[in-house]
């Protein structure tokens, strides 16, 4: 046979190869069993996990689609109505406190009294009689004006009062007065104080800028002299 020497050589080489360990097949079967069990577990989790994923996705979609919860105790409309009611109540209170007729009458009375006192003092002086007449007239006119303005305001208030039904106030825009102060630091400074502080800050900034300009001028002059 051709290449018999090669065959013999290979035969001898194969004989000298290390033999297969006796427990190798047993270890192999254990490994195969482990892999089969782990595959079964993975299959089970593979079946379960799509359902879990679908449930998560459905939950997220539900969160976006569900409408936000509505608080029955407070709503935008009811809060506006409440504020309006409050403002109407305030107005009523003011109107009750300030009765226009008595107010005008009081003002007029005070002025008349003053005039009488003045008249009594200067009764002997004829020069002042005209003045007193003038002042009386002025007082009357001012009293009339006061009455007129007060009546106008009273009419305005009346109209507003008449136009505001007790049960259904007209809607109006909310202002800063309606919103209560909740931050404690806002109680600290008044508006005037804040404005003053801003003004002072601006002045300080301007002074600082002027100072910087002076410094730069001085430096320029010095460098010019040094050269």
């Amino acid at each position, binding site marked *: 046979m051709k290449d018999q020497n090669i065959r013999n050589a*290979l035969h001898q080489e*194969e004989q000298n190869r290390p033999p297969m360990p006796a427990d*190798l097949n047993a270890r*192999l079967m254990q490994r195969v069993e482990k892999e089969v069990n782990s595959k079964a577990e993975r299959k089970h989790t593979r079946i379960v996990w799509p359902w879990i994923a679908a449930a998560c996705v459905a939950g997220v979609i539900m969160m976006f689609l569900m409408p936000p919860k509505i608080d029955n105790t407070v709503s935008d409309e009811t809060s506006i109505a409440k504020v309006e009611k409050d403002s109407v109540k305030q107005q009523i209170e003011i109107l009750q406190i300030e009765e226009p007729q008595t107010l005008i009458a009081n003002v007029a009375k005070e002025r008349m009294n003053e005039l009488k006192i003045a008249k009594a003092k200067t009764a002997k002086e004829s020069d002042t009689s005209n003045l007193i007449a003038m002042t009386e007239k002025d007082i009357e006119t001012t009293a009339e004006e006061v009455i007129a303005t007060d009546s106008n305001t009273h009419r305005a208030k009346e109209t507003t009062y008449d136009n505001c039904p007790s049960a259904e106030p007209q809607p109006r825009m909310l202002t800063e007065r309606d919103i209560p102060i909740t931050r404690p630091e806002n109680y600290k400074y008044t508006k005037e104080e804040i404005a003053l502080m801003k003004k002072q800050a601006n002045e300080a900034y301007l002074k600082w800028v002027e100072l910087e300009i002076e410094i730069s001028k001085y430096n320029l002059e010095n460098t010019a002299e040094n050269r």
Partner: protein
Amino acid sequence: MTETEIHIIEGLRQQSPKVQQEALEQYGNYVWAQVVRLVTSVEDAEEVYQDVFVKVFGNIKMYDEERSSFRTWLSRIAYNESITFLRRKRQAIIYFEDNEGQADALSEAEVEETLGHGNEETVQLIRAAIRHLPPDEQAIITMFYYDEMSLKEIAYVTETIPTTVASKLSRTRKKLCKIIKMLQS
């Protein structure tokens, strides 16, 4: 195909542990020999051996009776797993590389004269020369001369064509001759 082979193939397809055990008893030594030719370390060979059969049991559905015998299919998996292991491990293997092409220049007559002497000394020289061959060439000549596989079967195992296997065999013979001459000098 023998009845034993048919029984084993059917049982493996059903993932029967009993038939798997029978397959190991039937083909275990053969696969071990295939693996240990390429992977000389015993510990590494054990690992590769296990990987081979795990792959066989897992991919039995891919076996096609018309393309090759079951034994040849096993050889293919064992060969590929061994080569993959050697590449992954990047173990330094010292072997003869005929970069100058001096082996190819040898004539068939010279080769026959070198390898043809029927004495023990020549056999030992050939054994020593085989150890200087790269692992894949060792496997090919072993499959051809020891396992007596055909060129078609070797081509299936090494995933090449029969003519490539034939030319490789021829070159390997000449290389053996060259190595023997180097060893003798």
